[in-house]
Every structure is written in C-alpha cells, then in structure tokens.
C-alpha cells in the first residue's frame, strides 16, 4: 500500500449511490470487485471502508435495489454476484439528483465571498 496519496473516507450517505452507480455501469459484480472499482475510478482518492460495503449491500437486497446470485469467479472461487434491479435504477436516479442538489448548494455557500 502506498502512503503517498491521500485517501479520503467517502462522505456518509453516498455509499449507496456509489454502489448503485458502479453496478449500473459494470453489470454483475461481487463485493470485492465493487470496492476495487470505486477505488480505481476515483483514482484512489475515495477509499471504501471495505467491510462497510457488506451491510450496505444487505440493506440494498432488502430494499430490492439489487439482486444477488452465487456464481464462480475467474479464479474459480464461489462468490456472490450483485445485479441492479429496476427499483435500483430508479433509486440511483433519486440519489444522484439529490446529491447534485446538495452539492451545488454547498458549493454556492463556500464560494460566496
């Protein structure tokens, strides 16, 4: 692990949005792949606190935003693959617009001289 880049915890409440977006873009993935993907795409700035991915996924399963099925990885290991549902796609849109609204508001506040 390199310590030269600063790693930031993701802001609270955005984990669901990140997972939903990742699944929407890349289709079926297991937990480790989701964590890795978020980290890589954010160029290692966003570090998912890896374990906390799993409670979030459980909640998303209950909510019906994702479906899970056991499959086999490229390395021939049993893994649980998550897939976005229709409800999940709708939820992603809701979370995205909400996030953008809040973000723009914050930016306006901090940029006002």
């Amino acid at each position, binding site marked *: 692990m390199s310590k030269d880049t600063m790693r930031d915890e993701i802001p609270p409440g955005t984990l669901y949005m990140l997972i939903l977006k990742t699944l929407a873009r890349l289709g079926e993935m297991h937990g480790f792949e989701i*964590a890795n993907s978020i980290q890589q795409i954010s160029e290692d700035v966003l570090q998912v606190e*890896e374990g906390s991915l799993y*409670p979030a996924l459980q*909640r998303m399963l209950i909510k019906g935003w994702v479906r899970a099925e056991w499959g086999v990885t490229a390395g021939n290991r049993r893994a649980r693959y998550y897939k976005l549902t229709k409800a999940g796609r709708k939820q992603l849109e809701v979370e995205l617009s909400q996030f953008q609204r809040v973000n723009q508001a914050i930016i306006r506040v901090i940029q006002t001289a």
Partner: protein
Amino acid sequence: MAWFGELWRRLATLIRRRQLDTDLEEEMRLHVELRTQQHIQAGVLPEQAGRVARRRFGNVTLLKEVSREMWGWRWLEVLLQDIRYGLRMLAKNPGVTMAVLSSLALGIGANTAIFSLLNAVVLKALPVERPEQLVQFSETYSQGDEASFAATFEIRYFGSLSTVLDGVRRRVWAIDRNFPLFRVKTLEVQTEDSLVKERLIATLSTFFGVLAALLACIGLYGTMAYGVARRTGEIGLRMALGAHRRGVIWMVLRETVLLIVIGILMGLLCAVGVSHLLASQLYGVKPTDVLTLSAASLLLATVAMFAGYVPARRASRVDPMVALRYE
C-alpha cells in the same frame, strides 16, 4: 407495492437466517483473501499481506452484526434475549416468583369472577327480550297457615299498561267472574322485589372483592419489593462492574413485565375457571367480562410495575461498596 416486497424479503431473512449468515461469512472471507492475494502480487510478504487486508476490511464480527441489523429483526432478537434472561432470573428466585405469580393470578381471577357476576345480577337488565313490555299476574292461594301455591302468568303488552289491564280483566272475567287478577306487577318490579336478597349478597361480595383486590395489591407490592431488595447485593455487583443505573432499573422492570404477562395469563385461566363454576349456577351470566378482566389486570400490573421500580431505583442509588456487603 414496494413495501410489500420489502416486508416479504425481510420475512425471508427470518426463515433463511442460518444460510444468510454463512453466505455473509463466505463473502467476507473471500474479500479478505482476494485482497491478500493482491498485496502478495504487489510484493508484500504473505503474513504481512493478510494482516493489512484484514485491517483494511475492518471488524468482521461487528460488520456481520451491522449486516444482520439491516434485516430488521434486531428488536426481535433483543426481545427473545430479554425473555430468556428474565426467565432465568425468575427461576433463580422460585419462592418470590411463585408468590408474585399467585398474587397476580388470584387477584385477577377472583376479582374478575366476582365483578362479572355482580355485573350480571345487579347492573344488567333481565335476560329476556324487552323486559319492560312484560307484566305478570300472580295470586297466592293460602290454605291454612302453611300450604300455599301460586298461579302466575305473564303477558307482553304494548302501549298504556292500564288500558291493557282493563282489556285483560274484561276478557278473563267474561269467562270466569271469580278468576283473581289483582297482584299485577311489571316484570321489572317483580324482579327487583324477588332479588333483594341476591342483590344484598352481590353488594357484599363487591365489598369483599374490593377488599380482596386491595389485599392482592398490598401482598404483591410487599413480595415484589422484597424480591428486588434481596437482590441489592447483585445490583451492587453489577454496578461495580460498570452497569448504568438506568440499565439496572430496566433489567428489573423487564423481569417485572415478564412476571405481569405470565401472571395475567394465569389470572385469565383462573377467572375463566371460577366464572364457569359460578355461571353454571345462574342463568344468563356470561362467564367472563372483558372490561372487568382488563381493569383488574391493569390495576395489578400498575402496582407490580411500581413495586419493581421503586426498590430497583433505591437499590441502584446505593453505593456499590455498601450494596456488595448487603445481606
């Protein structure tokens, strides 16, 4: 319909919980192993790679716990745990437990039975349809001093009583001029008159019922307070080990609630049994009056909660060092 699907999935987690637990475990294990492999490929020493991967993952036990909370049955687990724990504590003091339970059961049972009966005899109307429409004709024939018998019949009337009576008299006397039709009373008055003794008894039993309820309350309070006070030493130990005052009070109250629930169930059985016995002697008495049962249960439950709370509060205020030495 989204909530329905969610409810369904929640229920499913309740049924398949063991499978879901192992699934979650396997998933998390795979994650740590894959991360370890990644580190090893990046040139980290194997034993160090495992440690780093685990640290980065977080507290597995805690995360599993949080995941289970997402299924939404945490309250149920806590409830079951409390009940198990409460039962164990109650079993440790069988004497006090039995005394409290019998006070509750008898207090609720006896009072419900008495008041249901009272309600039926004194407060409720006659067990016939529209009793106000009934009028009774009766005549007592006396022969000598002892032997007597009565001729009685009843009619159902509408409209003005005196008009109806005149009509009846005319018709009957047209057939038999000597037929006696003098002691005329509405059925309600007749019942009032003939039930004087029963009502007195009922009033007396009300008095005794109230007295019994009062005694049950006092007995319940005494026994419960004694049971909790006896545990001052245990409470002191808990507090010395770091239990909060509120936690200790809740512990006692949870056990009290458990006692109350069991006691009310036993009281219900008692009440049904006694009332059936009484009802078999009387016509038209409903075995159990729900209102009375609830009132008696509520009264005794309130007393029991109070009897648990006050001494628990007192015990939790005692300095742990003093409490530990309490005999």
